[in-house]
């Protein structure tokens, strides 16, 4: 244990605790900027500099472990002057046109300037305009706002293992960008959005599609419907009230109704549908010598990654579309027919925790009529929060409203899609019962839950014991993909999610996502599951009816046309926005 003083208050903390963490444990807040929980300590911004009595220079609290007997001051005149100076230096090289930035009022740099009472900047502005990368469908990279904290490089390189973003040059002129300052669309970017999720300022943001939705909502010719992903209902609350992990399903539906959507549907419905198709696909491959291991396909970041880096293993990936896209296809066929509307007048909006879903919706394979996307616009959880604010809705005061029929009855299996291991667990609940012809006693496959990178389980299916795995982050996806490529994979079925924690940790989720908040959202996800009446996809009566009345048999002709897709090897991203608008 270490005993020392911060601001004359004596503290005792475990060995190897940094000054910053020691302060946090004792409710002393030291300002930081480049620091981010769960990422590497960079010690670049120097904002968290503190004074140790008897030492000449200042040290950074994030990287310094105190020694017993030290006396540290976090707000001495020397420290305050240093912090102010450093912040002024950052601001002197920053496009501080805040009112024209989507991060206005939600920006760590602004918060810091406010905390430090920055008034007039002593230093001359040395910022000069640089081109903005607006060339893809999911993300906007604006180097004019970049403060070179390095968080985006950290997640892209060390969490995702992709390393598209890097520091170019050195010294004052250095920038953070892909090779040659290329567009992300010309690079191996999968649009997972993890960079956007950790950026403290507005240097990387999701493409703002809210205006397209407002336009559609006020277009009398359009029937505007919305689908909501499983992860959103345990996350939206954070954007609006700041409470982590609150389950806000009912209020969410009410809010969407108030925004003007004709019908509010649940993506969980098509998640159940995905389980049926994918479950039967897996059974078919196991029983008829198909390509194994089979790998899930609902994560577009994973699909991009596989197409770019592991084209050889594409036959292993399930041909099932994602729940988002299955919904879009059904909306423009089954729903349009049932409602007697021309599919061209059905406008599908989906609310996702994900930025890569914006890209997925515009893939050329995702257009039933070959012309119009099945999903017209994808909004992130953050964008929905923005629209709710724009509408002036008092979210907390809203009543609870259920999802609309026919796409509103769902199961616990669908609800857990948002957590890493959830798709796997949901699939096992169905596959087990279908093959073994007996009910599954324990529905909870706990060994595939949680934040460990690669999680395994063993299941006995049709007399054979098979090994399955759930992985999250692309760095871990690479490991299992290599095994599949080399023919050394011990698994029969692998779930791959590109974001840490699964979709609840997606690139479009509320800012400030850490392992702690991921776990809280995951816990809420399993709470939703535990409280649902029906917990297995194949017991969803609306799904059963859909097959009986419309789709026919799983993997049949109609499901194949509507609910399945194909992939192809790609050299680079090939995702220019010009191809899609």
């Amino acid at each position, binding site marked *: 244990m270490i005993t020392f003083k911060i601001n004359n208050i004596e503290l005792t903390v475990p060995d190897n605790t940094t000054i910053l963490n020691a302060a946090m444990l004792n409710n002393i807040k030291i300002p930081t900027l480049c620091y981010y929980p769960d990422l590497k*300590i*960079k*010690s*670049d*911004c*120097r*904002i968290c*500099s503190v004074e140790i009595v008897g030492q*000449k*220079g*200042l040290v950074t609290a994030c*990287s310094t*472990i105190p020694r017993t007997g030290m006396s540290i001051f976090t707000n001495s005149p*020397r420290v305050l*002057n*240093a912090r102010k*100076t*450093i912040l002024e*230096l*950052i601001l*002197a*090289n920053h496009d501080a046109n805040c009112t024209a930035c989507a991060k206005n009022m939600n920006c760590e740099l602004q918060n810091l300037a406010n905390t430090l009472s920055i008034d007039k900047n*002593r*230093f*001359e502005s*040395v910022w000069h305009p640089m081109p903005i990368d607006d060339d893809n469908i999911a993300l906007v990279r604006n180097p004019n706002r970049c403060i*070179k904290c390095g968080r985006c490089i950290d997640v892209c390189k060390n969490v995702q293992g992709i390393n598209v973003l890097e*520091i170019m*040059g*050195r*010294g*004052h002129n*250095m920038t953070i960008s892909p090779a040659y300052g290329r567009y992300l669309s010309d690079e191996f970017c999968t649009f997972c959005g993890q960079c956007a999720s950790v950026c403290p300022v507005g240097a990387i943001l999701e493409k703002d599609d809210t205006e397209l939705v407002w336009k559609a909502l006020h277009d009398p010719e359009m029937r505007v419907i919305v689908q909501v992903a499983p992860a959103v209902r345990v996350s939206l609350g954070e954007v609006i009230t700041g409470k982590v992990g609150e389950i806000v399903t009912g209020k969410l539906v009410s809010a969407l109704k108030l925004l003007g959507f004709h019908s509010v549907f649940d993506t969980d419905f098509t998640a159940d549908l995905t389980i049926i198709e994918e479950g039967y696909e897996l059974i078919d491959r196991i029983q008829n010598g198909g390509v194994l291991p089979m790998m899930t396909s609902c994560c577009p970041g994973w699909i991009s990654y596989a197409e770019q880096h592991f084209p050889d293993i594409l036959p292993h990936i399930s041909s099932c579309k994602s729940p988002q896209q299955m919904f879009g296809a059904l909306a423009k066929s089954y729903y349009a027919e049932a409602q007697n509307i021309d599919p061209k007048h059905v406008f599908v909006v989906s609310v996702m925790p994900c930025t890569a879903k914006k890209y997925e919706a515009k893939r050329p394979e995702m257009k039933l009529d070959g012309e119009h996307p099945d999903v017209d616009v994808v909004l992130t959880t953050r964008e929905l929060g923005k629209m709710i604010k724009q509408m002036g809705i008092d979210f907390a005061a809203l009543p609870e409203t259920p999802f609309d029929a026919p796409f509103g009855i769902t199961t616990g299996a669908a609800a857990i899609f948002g957590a890493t291991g959830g798709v796997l667990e949901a699939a096992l609940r169905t596959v087990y019962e279908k093959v073994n012809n007996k009910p599954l006693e324990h529905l909870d496959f706990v060994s595939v839950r949680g934040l460990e990178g690669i999680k395994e389980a063993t299941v006995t299916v049709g007399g054979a014991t098979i090994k399955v795995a759930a992985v999250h982050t692309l760095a871990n996806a690479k490991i299992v993909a290599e095994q599949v490529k080399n023919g050394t994979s011990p698994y029969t079925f692998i779930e791959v999610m590109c974001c840490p924690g699964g979709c609840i940790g997606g690139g479009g989720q509320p800012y400030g996502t850490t392992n702690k908040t991921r776990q809280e959202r995951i816990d809420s996800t399993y709470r939703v599951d535990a409280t649902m009446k029906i917990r297995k996809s194949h017991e969803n009566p609306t799904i059963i009816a859909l097959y009986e009345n419309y789709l026919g048999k799983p993997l049949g002709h109609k499901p194949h046309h509507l609910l399945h897709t194909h992939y192809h090897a790609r050299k680079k991203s090939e995702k220019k926005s010009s191809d899609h608008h």
Partner: protein
Amino acid sequence: MIEQKVITKRIGHINPLSIEDFISLDGYAAFKKALSMNRMEVIEQVEKAYLRGRGGAGFPAAVKMIGLAKESGPVKYIIGNADEGEPGNFKDRYLMENDPHQIIEGMLIVAYATRATHGYIYIRGEYDLCISTMKWSIEQATKHGFLGKNIMGSDFSFTIEVRSGAGAYVCGEEFALIESIEGKPGRTRVKPPFPTSRGVFNKPTLINNVETFANIPVIISMGGAAYAKVGTATSTGTKLICLSGNVKNKGVFEIPFGVSIRSVINELGGGAAKGHKLKMVQLGGACGPIIPELMLDMAIDYERFEEFESKTGAGAIIVIDERFNIFEILMKVALFFSHESCGKCVPCREGHIQLIIIIQKFIDRKATSQDLISLESLARVMHQTSLCGLGQTSPTAIISALRYFRDDFIDCIEFHECEENGQL
């Protein structure tokens, strides 16, 4: 004569490319002696000698050796830092070009004492001749059995590889150098851990300037206590001084610590260049303080230089005469560091451009008293909060100039005020 040739004693008397010449003048004798000593004993001699790093920081060499020796293997590294990018410094070039084996011998002794297994000599890319000389010498030493496996029948094995820099002064900093050896941009790392626990490829590593290693064979030969008798109590042994600028005789001179700056300039340098009066001297290199003529009686000594809140630097003495004003010199310094900054931390990356803007105002005689306050404040903040030695020492010249040449700043401000008030 104030010169004392200890590590430069062979220079001029040997063909540097001949290992036989080196051996004939006691070359590798100290290493042979070390091999017969207990490893701890070798470190103790260096401790008794109180050898301090000659690259600028002046850190006690024995502390690093003890640190490395404590680490368990199986792989441990020794790195000879020959990145010598500090303006005004050319002593490492001088050593490598003229007595290359001495450095190898020093590294061997330290490697033996600390059970290191691999060595690198990191030489700045501009020193093409040094790179080929060191590579040749390592080949020669290997052929003669001083490098390789089970050297001279002992259980000690050690190899050295030469690595070239590629034009980045910052790679003289320990971790930036390590990053460069690992093939990456030369940006420092968060400390701790320090190189002796996690260095190259995360293995225990000891880095010292090549002049430091050149002192090791001398210490083993004469004994640490005898070595410590030369110089001062806090700065033992000799130092290679690089004399340059507006001085008659420029070059490398080896002097014992304690000698005054003035005596080096006058006795060895022949005084200021013909026809001009000495105005200021920059000590150590671009990272060092700028002092006026009346301070030249100061002794060359680590503790004396600590008073400038900076290190001695690598030993350069740059003489500047009255033809040049303080602002153009400070601008040169600021431009140098601005170009060489790695960009990792805010104070250094964003601070230098602001220093340049303010200094330019003084050059243009448009500076105000607020500019003076901002300059002083910014220099101090950079000094106190930068992540590595580059940003921490870059403002030293400004801080010293504000102390010793403050009148020049005030005159400039007053001139501008008079101009503004139409008094001119």
